[in-house]
Each structure stands twice: as C-alpha cells, then as structure tokens.
C-alpha cells in the first residue's frame, strides 16, 4: 500500500474511531423513545468514557498481570481488526487475501483474553459469565463461518472488502434467497457477539443473569473504558460486515458511499434498539437453540449457494 493511500485513509480511520460510542447512544435513545422517555444526552457514552479514563483503578488481591492485560489485548485485537473491515468506504486499510480469517480470529483473541481476565478474579460470578461467553462464542462460530463460505463462493475471494464488495450485487441477483439467509444468520451472530437482547441484556442488574457484564464486574477506570469502547467497536465492525453484505453498493464515489453507510449504521442501531424493546431476553438454555437456528440459516444458505454455483 502506498503512502498516499494511507494518508487518504486517515479521515475514514478517524471516523471509525469516533463512531462506536455514538451507536451505543442511538440504541439507548431508541429504547428511551419506545418507553416514552427522553433518555440520556446524545454524547453520554463519550462523557462516560472520559469519566472512566480519568478515574483510578482498583485491583483485587487475587488478580495477576493477566487481569491487567485482558482489556488491553481485547481492544488491541479489535483495533487491528478495524484496519481490515470495510466500514464507511468499500475498502479497508490493510486488507489482503485471507484477511477474513484473521478478522474472525482477532475477535477470538479478544474473547480469550476477556475470559481469562474474568477467571483471574477467582470469582464464581465471573467464572460463570466466562463459561457462558465461551459457550455462546463457540456456538456462533459455525453460523459465522457458514455465512463466510457463502460470501467467499459468491466472490471467489478471501479478502473481506471484496467478499462484501460491489460484486455482491450479482450474488443478490443469482442467489438472492441465500443472501437473505446469510443476513439473518449474521444478524444473530451480531446480537450474540455484542451481547444484545435476546442473548444477553446489557442493562441487567442481577449478576446471575448476566453474560458479558458479569465478566467485567471487577474492571474499573481506564480498563473499563477500554472494555466499553471495545464492545462498541465490535458492534460497529460486525454491523458493518452485516450492512455491506445486506446492501451492496455498486461502486459509488466516496462522497455518496460514506454518508449512505453512516445512515445504514444508524438504522442498524435503531433496529437493535427496537429488538431490545420488543422482546425479552431468552432463557439461558434457550440461547443455544437460537444459535443452532442461526447455524441452520447459514447451512441452508450454503446449500443454496453450493447447488446454485455448481453445474
């Protein structure tokens, strides 16, 4: 990649870094609107992050360096993934053939260290949350990879920005039903991985029912800021993959492309907020069924594509 391309990517990178908390704000505002409230100010997530960055930290006597490294590695993995995922434009900063696998495994790296940091506290609650996280994370993996198979066959490429690029227009034309199923599977993966209703409720206040929140109970100060921001960034990245797959743009110039993507992201956040208002979270032992459902959607899409693409 040339220097000019890197320089040209700076405004987009700045936007990608600045956007995530806004999406959280939109989800919260949507929920408030459904409940007939005004809700917190639009910039509240940014203010929360600022507040957390300025606080000190409290560490438990039980913890080791793994606990301190957890949030850092998690956020670093997500930031690295952000250089590979197309967000506002249709290209990515460091994209290369095969980067889609790296993105999936960077998410896994982040999960590994979040889980280890939780286990480092020696708390039963956090152990429970960690166990749930690895269970649901493992179960959403087949759905994610089945969707990726469909996208890879459609584009004959393993570069994420090409897999969800403009040639998906053709794929929607030939294997439209499969693409629809992929979007459904990716939406469930998004809700699982970002700990949203119906899998997890980020607003719950009972440790026994939490998944992600209970794992990060003992983090405070800048550590917790990293975690909050990381969760929002993960939402942005997975949401972008979903949106690029669902609404392929046929190579429009950047000044049309980027604002449209932004509107789509706002729409996605609104939809997630609406889902959170319109349904309760599932019982924990029902979640595997939902993920199995996502896997079936992905499998059906793969079947349709495989039978469609081979003559």
């Amino acid at each position, binding site marked *: 990649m040339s220097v000019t391309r890197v320089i040209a990517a700076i405004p987009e990178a700045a936007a990608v870094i600045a956007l995530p908390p806004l999406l959280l704000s939109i989800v919260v505002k949507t929920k408030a609107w459904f409940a007939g409230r005004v809700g917190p100010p639009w910039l509240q997530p940014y203010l929360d992050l600022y507040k957390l960055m*300025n*606080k*000190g*930290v*409290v*560490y*438990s*006597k*039980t913890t*080791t*360096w793994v606990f301190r490294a957890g949030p*850092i590695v998690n*956020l*670093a993995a997500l930031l690295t993934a952000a*250089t*590979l995922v197309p967000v506002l434009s249709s290209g990515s900063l460091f994209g*290369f*053939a*095969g*980067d889609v*696998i*790296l993105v*999936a*495994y*960077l998410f*896994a*790296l982040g*999960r*590994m260290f979040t*889980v*280890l940091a939780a*286990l*480092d*506290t*020696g*708390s039963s*609650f*956090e*152990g*429970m949350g*960690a*166990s749930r996280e*690895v*269970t649901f994370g*493992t*179960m959403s*993996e*087949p759905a*994610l*990879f089945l969707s990726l*198979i469909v996208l*890879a*066959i459609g584009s*004959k490429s393993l570069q994420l920005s090409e897999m969800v690029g403009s040639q998906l227009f053709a794929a929607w034309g030939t294997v439209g039903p499969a693409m629809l199923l992929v979007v459904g599977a990716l939406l469930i993966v998004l809700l699982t991985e970002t700990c949203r209703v119906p899998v997890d409720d980020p607003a719950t206040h009972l440790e026994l029912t939490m998944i992600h929140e209970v794992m990060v*109970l*003992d983090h405070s*100060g800048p550590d917790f800021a990293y975690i909050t921001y990381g969760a929002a960034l993960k939402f942005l990245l997975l949401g972008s993959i979903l949106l690029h797959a669902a609404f392929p743009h046929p190579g429009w110039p950047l000044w049309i492309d980027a604002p449209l993507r932004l509107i789509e992201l706002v729409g996605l956040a609104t939809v997630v907020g609406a889902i959170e208002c319109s349904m309760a979270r599932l019982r924990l032992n029902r979640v595997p069924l939902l993920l199995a459902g996502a896997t079936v959607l992905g499998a059906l899409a793969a079947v349709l594509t*495989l*039978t469609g693409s*081979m003559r």
Partner: protein
Amino acid sequence: MSAILASLAVLLGGAVLTAMLSQRPRLGLLIAMLSILGGSLLCLAAALPCLVHTSAAQSIVLAWPLPLGEARLALDGLSAWFLATIALLSSAVAIYAWEYLQAELGKEPVPALGAFLCVLVAALILVVTASDVALFLLGWELMMLASFFLVAFHHRQPEVRRAAWIYLVANHLGTALFVFPLFGILAAKAGGIDFQTFQAALRNSDQGTTTVLFLLGLLGFGTKAGFMPMHIWLPVAHPAAPTPVSALLSGVVIKVGIYGLLRLLGWLPALSVSCALVMLVFAMVSGVLGVLYALAQHDIKRLLAYHSVENIGIIGLGIGMGMLGHSLGQPALVALGYGGALLHVLNHALFKGLLFLSAGAVIHATGTGDIERLGGLARKTPVNAALFLLAAVSICGLPPFNGFVSEWILYGSLFSGTWVGSRSAAWVAAMGVLSLALMGGLALACFAKVFGVVFLGEPRERAIRVHPTPALMRVGMLIPAALCLGIGVWPTVFVPLTAGGVRTVAGLDAGEVSQRIRSVLSPVGHLTLLAAVLLTSIVALGGIKRLLLRRPGAALAAPVVTWGCGFAQPTGRMQYTASSFAWSLIHSFRSVLWPHRKIAAPAGPFAVHAALESHVPDMAEHDFFAPLLRGVSRAFRMIRNVSWTGEPVLPAPSRDDGARVGPMRVLITGVATALRQGRIQLYMGFIVLTLLVVFFVESLSPRESAAPPARPAARGIEGTSK
C-alpha cells in the same frame, strides 16, 4: 548425510554408555541428555541446508551384510522437514529433562530412561530417513519398543503398566494388521524393498490397488498418528509417561504416523476423489471429537493428549485437501493443503511440546495433574504461567502465533475447495471449514478452562505446596516458545521451507507452490504487518493506560478482595471449577458425548454435604474396541479350550459324572490338555516340529524345483517376513 550417520552414532553410543553407567545415575543422565542435544544439532545441520535449498534428495547406501541387503538412507524435503521437527523438540526436551529428572534420581532407574530416550530419538531419525522397507520397519519397531519402556517408567503403579501395555498392543495391532501388509504389497509390486522404486512401480496400478494401499496406510499409520477411533492408546499412554516422554510422544512420535502416510501418498498416483473424502471425514471426526473429549477431561496431561487427536485431525484436513486437489487436478489445493499440513506438523510439535513441558512443570511444582485441585499458580510460578499461556494461545490458532499461520493456510485450502472443485468436493470442503471453525472455538474454551483454573484465581487446596520451576527447565521451554512467536510473526522465513516436502509428496516444485498459494492467499508477509499492528496497539494502549494512572489524583487504590456481591471473605473453594466451566458446552453436545454426572444435591435447610462429579467415557474405547476385543478374546478362548462357549469342555476331571461325556470329547480335551503343559521346552519343540513340516512340504512341492528364477521366491519371503 554423514551428519545424520554421526548423529545416529552419537545417540546410540550415548545410549550404550548411559546403560553401562547405571551405578552413576547422575553422570549417566548427563551423558544421555548431552548426546540427545548433540544428535539433534547434527540432524538440524543436515536438515536445514536441504530445506533452504530444496535440493534434490541425497542418499547413502551402507553395504552392510544384513540379511535383507544393504541399508539405504535418504534425505529429501519431506524427511528433512520431519527431521528438523524431531531435532528442535528433542533438543528442548533434553535440556528440560536434565532438571526434571533430578527428582527421580535414586528412586527410579533414571539411566535406563536416559538410554531409552536416546534410542527413541535415534529410532525417530532412522524412520524418517530410512529409504528401504527393512530399515524403516526396524526403526519403526525400535521406536515402539523404546517408547513402551519409556511409558512404563513408573512401572510400580498398576495403571502405568496397563497404559504401557495398551500402547504396545494398540500400536502393534496397527502395525501387524495394516503396515506389514501394506509394505508386503508394495514390495511385491516393485520387486524389491527400495523406497525409490515404489513410485515407478505404482505408476500404472489400477484404482482398486491404490485404494487398498491407501486404506491400509490410513489405518496402519493412522493408529500411530492417533486418528479417531484408533486413538485409544493416546489418552492412556500420555498421562502415564514421565513428562519429557509425553512431550516427545505427542510432539514427534505421533507425527511419524503422518510421515508414513505422506510418504505413501508420495508413491501413489492420483487417488480417486472418494479416498480424499474418506481422509477428510476421518480428519473432521478426529478433530471435533478430540477437542470435545479434551474439554471434558480433568487431568491436565490426558486433556493435552486429546488435543493431540484434535490437531492430528487438523493436519488430516490439510492432507485430505491436498489429496483432493491431486485427484481433481487443482495444484492450488495441493500446495495449500499439504503446505498447511506440514507447517502444522512443526507447529503442533512446538506448542504441544511446550504445553506438555509446562504441564510437567506444574506437576513438578505441585505434585498433581488434577486441575480441579490447582489454582493461582500464576503468582507462584509466573514464568511457567506465561509460557503455558503462550502455548495455549498458539494451539487455539490465535494471532500472532504459529498456530494461526498454519490454520490460515488450511482455511485457504478449505475455502478455495468450495469453489474450485466438483460438487461433492465443495460439500466436504464446506464441512471442513465448519469443523475447523468449531474446533477453534472449542479449543479456545478448553484452554481458557485449563489456564484459568490452573494458573489464575486462588489455590483450591491450601495443602498443596508449590516449588519454583528450575532455571534449566525454563530454558528448555523457551526454545519452542521463541519459535511459536517467531513463526507467527515472521512466517515469510518458515512457510517456504515446506516447499520441499510438498514437492516430495505431490511433485510440485518450489516456485509453483508459492505461485499457487498466491492465487488464493496473499503472501504471508501480510501477517507480519498485521502482527506488527497488533503488537503496536497493545504497547500503545498499555502506554496510554500507564500515563493515565501516573497522573496525580489517579492513584492506584489499595488492593481489595474480589467483588462477590458484598460477600467479603471469599475462599478458594468458592471459585468456579473446571467441570462447571465446561459443563454448559458439554451439555450442549450431550448427544455426541454421553456424559455421566453424579449429583449429591444439598438437602434440607442446613445442608452439610453436596457433591457433583462429571465424567465422559471415551466412546471408541467403551463402545467399539471393548466389545470387539471381548469378542476376539472369546474366539481365542474357544480355540484354546476347543469348545463353542469359550468355557473349558471339562471344567475339572470330575469322577462322578464322567460317564456322561462321550469318548470323542474326552479324546479332544485330552489332546488339548496334553499339548498345553505350560512347559517352554515343549512349545519350542512344537516350533521346531512345525518348521520341519514346512521344510518337508516345501521340498516335496514340484513347483519349487520347476520355477527357474530365484527372484519371485525371494520376493515372496521378503514380502511376508517383515
């Protein structure tokens, strides 16, 4: 080539010297470890030039007056790759074992262990460099016998004796039933035992023959490699063996099975697609079931042994994709599949070796390998904890470590298999992607469990005292650790080295391999860039946090107890256990695993006792081999006792009801008991008698005198006597 001969001489000399020094165990151990180190370095010196230049095969013929002709050794890309793997891990194990075995001095026959370790390493080197059937099988047998004695090191414990016995029987069954017939057919086809002639001899064989040869190889070498369901010896033998031995067993000995399979594939012409599909199905079953069983284990070494089954499955996926590409005429699949499989062979040797050595350090420090009893070791043995974490992250295939590089290449082969091949191939490739993704997720869960429970949190049993890890053990572990990170960060250096092996197996030359890989995946240099991005972000985020906390007013608060909903006096026993951590996943896969769980629920308002025990028996062992072997042993009993029921015909020579037994049965039983006296002289007499009869019959045979050339007869003897 002479370096390999020198290394064999060093190792065998070391073994003899160590065995003679049984009165001076410390010196004996030192000599054994030094000769393993020296032998490994010599092997590396021989293998590296061959890998770097991907030159043509070198060979050497020793005109020894052996009964089966001269001994041939050869070194090509495939041999050199495995040789380098063996050498790297054995040198690390040698340094580690010197400290590790100090505790056993005076208690157990340590010099014998050292001598057998030397023999094992020599046998491994012999197997991967042998270039004729006799030498290969000699090395193969030597390897199995040496590792049998090594597994049986703590021979006073009955379960160790049982494990060693299962190891010996399982591997010899695999060898006798599949590997010997395989080489018999090969030698018969080629009319000789030289490996170099096999490829030409098989060029025009029909599909049926090659399929039979492949299946024999898959079952025979697969038993050694540990494909499901032939893996049952693995989880039994690994925990029983002393740690340096388990590391070698899991790191390199099972890889020799993969070597045999790849060597066979190099001789065979393109197989049918169905053979590749069989390979892929075996690999997927081994991979997914291996990691699921691993998740259910409580013993750290047994858990790691099941992970070896999983990783052999991952290697098998690569081999299967390579075979698929070969039969479909898709060089990209061949290069990616075999290349990824070979790289994973080295990677698995490194991180699994490191995991076993680190687990050994845990057992050395605490005296137990039961993970439910451990906890909080990261504060007592920080270096060992960091090394274990590094290996765990590598084995889960996470960036920026070596496991990711090989899994990345394998994903490349599987994904491209979904769009280049035929429809059935695309289906299986898609299944392969799915199973590899599932394996990745489950391995992450499993190693989060092990590392979290053993090293993090608080100790679960206060009574366990922790000894520090000795320095040389740490040095031994640093070698594979550095390579794990090195391969992950600079794959550009290591990935091209697999080209020689791919050429031996599939006939693609080095330039073509890299060109074909590039048609699907970017050059591996991109991984270096992204690893740099990742490591820079980690450093930057760490630095930002440090700066924020250094500011006045943002002081570090005093350490407190972990938040427990207001409960201020947590104990180690209150932590989440490994069983509970894994249970939700195991429960989700209960239709595959059939877990047993015993619960003693707390009862009454003042419950005093509650217990939970979960246990997952191995399906292959309990539901397949146990009934099968029971049937076989019943058949043998029937032969021995000359009766259909398997019970003795005449339980005892009872006098009162003797009249009811017919004269024929009395005669048969009488002869049977007369023949089974239990005297060894009598049995040897039988052998002599049988041989005499055989010679007599053969001298009578008219065909023998009529057959003009001696060659077919000699070939027949060669084919059957090995």
